[in-house]
């Protein structure tokens, strides 16, 4: 088991008391692809980041079990976790405009990631960076390596991000809405790329998204979160047979090209979903 989470709770202090962002979430992940789907505020990002303990400093985290490859994340010290972050687990964020350093070239950033975790000389790292750019299917890797992030399109920026995260050859990849800022064509390409790389390297993948059908295409299992809880967990191919009304609601409120609709179905939120 790569990741084991049992009864994770994350709370934040506010001016009016404690607010619960994640309530008793339990998930496991082996060498497979797990999708976590939910709307904003459902706690999906926090859940994934808790695996690497990358939460805001004022977060109050408790869990019966929170392990990465049997390392107790809750009790590990910062040094042990730093050996995990990047080297063994990578994190891809939504908008490469904000997650890439604007004053370094793409190649330099990938090379830096390489050297930070694998050591070696500058020339070797630069060559490795170009190799990685080729692996993420960039047609002219040498040119892109010399480019600055603002010169790259959204899709290219995400590919650079992926290359950076793959440089240390990690075992787990967490992708937090990696394609939400991209249009449909590029979305599909990036997700296919991620799926392909993860399968070939035998990695685990946690894909976080608000797009349920999209996630079902690229993951083996899907966990649906609502208001900090996992309301349903199912295999990707069984999505159409989902039972929880929230999951069904998410599927039914989507506009579709297959037939004409007069009005879109609107989610009726049942307060009983807040308990489980």
């Amino acid at each position, binding site marked *: 088991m790569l990741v084991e989470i049992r009864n994770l709770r994350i709370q934040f202090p506010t001016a009016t008391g404690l607010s619960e962002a994640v309530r008793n979430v339990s998930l496991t992940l082996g060498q497979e692809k797990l999708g976590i789907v939910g709307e904003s505020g459902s706690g999906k990002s926090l859940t994934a980041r808790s695996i690497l303990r990358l939460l805001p400093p004022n977060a109050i985290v408790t869990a019966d079990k929170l392990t990465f490859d049997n390392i107790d994340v809750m009790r590990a010290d910062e040094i042990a976790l730093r050996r995990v972050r990047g080297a063994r687990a990578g994190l891809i964020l939504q908008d490469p405009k904000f997650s890439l350093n604007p004053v370094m070239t793409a190649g330099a950033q990938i090379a830096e990631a390489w050297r930070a975790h694998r050591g070696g000389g500058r020339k070797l790292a630069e060559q490795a960076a170009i190799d990685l750019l080729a692996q993420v299917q960039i047609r002219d890797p040498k040119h892109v390596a010399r480019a600055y992030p603002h010169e790259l399109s959204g899709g290219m920026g995400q590919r650079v991000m992926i290359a950076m995260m793959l440089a240390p050859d990690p075992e787990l990849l967490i992708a937090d809405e990696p394609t939400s800022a991209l249009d449909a064509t*590029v979305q599909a390409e990036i997700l296919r790329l991620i799926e392909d790389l993860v399968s070939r390297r035998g990695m685990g993948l946690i894909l976080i998204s608000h797009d349920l059908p999209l996630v079902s295409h690229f993951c083996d299992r899907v966990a649906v979160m609502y208001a900090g809880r996992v309301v349903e967990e199912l295999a*990707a*191919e069984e999505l159409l047979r989902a039972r929880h009304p929230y999951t069904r609601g998410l*599927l039914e409120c*989507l506009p579709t*090209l*297959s037939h004409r609709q007069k009005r879109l179905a609107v989610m009726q939120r049942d307060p009983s979903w807040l308990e489980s």
Partner: protein
Amino acid sequence: MIEIDGLCVRFGGLEAVKSVSFSVVRGESFGLVGESGSGKSTVLRALSGLNLNWTGRMSVDGQVLAPRRSKDFHRRVQMVFQDPYGSLHPRQTVDRLLSEPLQVHGMDNIERRIMRGLNEVALPATVRFRYPHQLSGGQRQRVAIARALMAEPQVLLLDEPTSALDVSVQAEVLNLLMDLQQAHGLTYILVSHNLAVVAHLCDRIGVMQAGELVELLSADDLRGGRTHHPHTASLRELSIELEEPETSL
């Protein structure tokens, strides 16, 4: 209602929009789809008056548009932006945001109009004195729509209005937009990269690729697969493939 003829927009050395022409009938919903960089948003911004480097001919309700728009134009044509977080002034309450267009156009009965505006977009009166950071994404977008409708426009330009919203909120906002169009007889131009959204709301659709308008077709034709240009076909195929959850191994 809206006629666009040979619109060209340049950014420095790059031609973002290459001789685009289409027309929109009063009360119609016209959709513009394409990938990022296809120029669809640029067309909208040129039409709205935000972008001044265009050539060609545009007219709204028979009046040809000059590069600098009149106040009257802004009363008749309004825009809703993509990012609900970014389109509301962070330091102004909803009340202030909604009263701004009324004050600019010297309209009376500000109090009543604001209450009516909030009501129309199904926002409770309690949000009236909140700041944008205290509202959810869906609420912010409703405020943006209410603001656009304050001056009683005839045309709404919608630049990816639901792309940044959760799917359930998107459904509500799309239904709202449909209702408002019926109630006020509005003309819409909707820009989006999401074909399903555009086909749902719009009657006719223009497909853009690399700055050119490559096809004009009806929503029914798009749904039925009666496309002519290969780009349209590939966009449609991808959309259908991705929207159906995978059901087999």
